[in-house]
C-alpha cells in the first residue's frame, strides 16, 4: 500500500497570533512552526500501516523552503520520502490541486490529511483532493483499518460516530482519535540522523487559479472585566445569568 500524508506547516498551538503590513499578513516573527496536529495524528496512523502492513509512507507539503524543517521532522518520525511543491500555499483549492497532482503522479492508495489546519481552519483540502481525483472521502476520521483494497473507517459525527466501508483509493480527513495522543512519536536521535539522508524532492507547481483570498485580519476585541461572585452568594450568579446575560 502506498500512503501519502499531507503536512501543513503551522504555528505551534501556544503561539500568540499577530499580523503585519496593515493587518494583511500573518506575522511569523518569533513563531515556532510545527506539523499541523491533525496531520500528525494521521502521519502516526500511517506509521502503523508501515510497521504492521509494510506500507510505504510519503509526505507532501505545499510551501516555500521555510517548510522544510517541518518535512524533515515528518521524515524523522518515519516517513520514507518527502515532497515539497515549491509555491506559497495560497488558498484551499490551489493547495488541493497541487496535492491532487502529486497524488495522481504517485499512484497512492491512501491519502491522509488533517481534517483542518489550525492556522486558516479552512477544512476543505482533504475533501477537495478527493473530489478532484475521484477518490472516496471520509472526514473527521477517528479509526482506520485497511484490508486488501478495502478500508473500514470510523467517522466522528455530532453526538456519536459511524462506521463506514470504502474501497481504495481513499482520502481521509484525520483528527485526534485516529491514534491516541500517547501514540504520537517524538523523533529520536537515530530518526533525526536518518531523516537528513532521506530524499526531500522539490517539484514545481501545476498551474491553478485560486478561489478565495484573505484580504485582512483582525484580532478579537479584548474581553471586558470579569465579574467575580462570592462562593457564598451563588444566587447572584443565577440572577446574572438570567437577567444580565440572559442565557438561562
Amino acid at each position, binding site marked *: 500500500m502506498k500512503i501519502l500524508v499531507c503536512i501543513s506547516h503551522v*504555528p505551534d498551538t*501556544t503561539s500568540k*497570533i499577530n499580523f503585519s503590513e496593515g493587518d494583511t499578513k500573518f506575522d511569523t516573527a518569533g513563531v515556532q512552526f510545527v506539523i499541523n*496536529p491533525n496531520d500528525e495524528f494521521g502521519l502516526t496512523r500511517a506509521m502503523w500501516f508501515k510497521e504492521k502492513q509494510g506500507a510505504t509512507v510519503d509526505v507532501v507539503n505545499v510551501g516555500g523552503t521555510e517548510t522544510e524543517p517541518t518535512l524533515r521532522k515528518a521524515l524523522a518520525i518515519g516517513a520514507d520520502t518527502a515532497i515539497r511543491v515549491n509555491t506559497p500555499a495560497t488558498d*484551499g*483549492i490551489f493547495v*488541493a490541486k497541487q496535492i491532487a497532482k502529486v497524488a495522481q503522479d504517485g499512484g497512492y492508495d491512501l491519502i491522509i490529511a488533517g481534517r483542518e489546519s*489550525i*492556522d*486558516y*481552519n*479552512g477544512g476543505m483540502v482533504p*475533501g*477537495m483532493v*478527493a*473530489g478532484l481525483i475521484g477518490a*472516496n*472521502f471520509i*472526514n*473527521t476520521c477517528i479509526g482506520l483499518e485497511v484490508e486488501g483494497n478495502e478500508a473500514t473507517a470510523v*467517522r*466522528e*459525527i*455530532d*453526538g*456519536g*460516530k*459511524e*462506521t*463506514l466501508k*470504502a474501497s481504495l483509493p481513499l482520502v481521509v480527513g484525520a*483528527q*485526534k*482519535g485516529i491514534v491516541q*495522543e*500517547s501514540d504520537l512519536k517524538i523523533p529520536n536521535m537515530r530518526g533525526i540522523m536518518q531523516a537528513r539522508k532521506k530524499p526531500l524532492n522539490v517539484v514545481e507547481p501545476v498551474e491553478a487559479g*485560486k*478561489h*478565495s*483570498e*484573505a*484580504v*485582512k*485580519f*483582525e*484580532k478579537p476585541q479584548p*474581553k471586558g472585566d*470579569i*465579574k*467575580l*461572585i462570592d*462562593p457564598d452568594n*451563588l*444566587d447572584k450568579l*443565577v440572577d*446574572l445569568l*438570567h437577567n444580565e*446575560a440572559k*442565557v*438561562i
Partner: protein
Amino acid sequence: MSVLVYTESEEGKFKKTAFEVASYAKGVADMLGTEVTAVSFNAQSAGDLGKYGVSKLLKVNDSKLEKFNAKAYADAIKQAADKEGSKVIVLSQSANAKYLAPLLAVQLEAGYASNVVALPEGTEPLEVKRTAFTNKAFSFTKLSTDVKIIGLSKNAFGLKESQAETTEEDFSPSLSEGDFSIEVVSVDKAADKVTIADAEIVVSGGRGLKGPENWGMLEELAETLGAATACSKPVSDMGWRPHSEHVGQTGKPVAANLYIAVGISGAIQHLAGVSASKTKVVINNDPEAPFFKAADYGVVGDAFEIVPKLTEKLKEFKANNS
C-alpha cells in the same frame, strides 16, 4: 438566482441550525435582491422554514438518502443549485455539512468560506468575515468565483424571523451508483444525550476535578441546565473522559450560549477553542488561573463545594421559572 440553503433535518424534523442558516440566507438574499430556496432530505414538510424567510423548499425524498451520505448529498445540492441558478449556497458547520462542503465546492467550481460569523461585508465581490487561527483572529475573505459557498458558524448569526410563504416542490436529483460508493455499516449515536455541537449550554471539567470519579456532580449540573458535558485536553489525554468530549484547539470548538468551566485553568489552546461561546463562567480555586481573564463571570473557590450548591440554586430557579 435565489440563495440556496441546505437545511438539515433529523427524523423528518428540521434542526435548530436549519433555521439559523435559513435566517442568514434570507439576510444574504436581501442584500442581493433575491429570495431563499431551501433543499432538504426526507423532511416531512416546510414546517417553520417560512418563518425564517424561505420562499421555496425543494424536498428530496429518497429512502437511499435516509442515512447521511456526503457524496450523494453534495451531488443532490449541486443539482438543486444548477436548477435554481443559485450563485450563493449557505450551509451550517455541522460535522455533516463540513464533510460535504468541499465535495460540493469541487463539483460547482465554487469558492468556499468556512466558519463565517457575519453577513457579507459586501457582495461585489463577496467578502465574508470568518474565524481563523482557531478563534484567535478573524479573517476577511473574498470569494472570486461565480458560485460561492458560505459555511455559517453555529450561533454566530442567531434566528431572525422574516415571514414568507413557502412553496414546496418535490425534487428528484439523478444520483449515480458512484454516489453510493461508501457504505454506512453502523451509526452509533446516544439518542438521549445533548451533543456539544447542538448544545445551548456546555458544562466542562478540567484537571481540577482530580479524577473521573468526580464527574457525577458535573453531570448533575449539566442535566439541570439541559447542557452537554465537555472536558479539557489533559482530562481526555488521561482517559478520564472520552475524546469526543475534548474541547479546544485540537478538539471540538464550542460556540454555546453559555460555557461553564470547572477546574480548567484556561490554556491558550483551550480558550481559543471555546471563545466563540457567548457567555463564559469559570469556577476555579486559583484566582490566578488565566481563564479568569477570558470569562464574563467567575467564582473563586472549591469546585467540590460550589458545583453542588450551584446545581441546587439552579434547580430552585428552574422550579420557580417554569
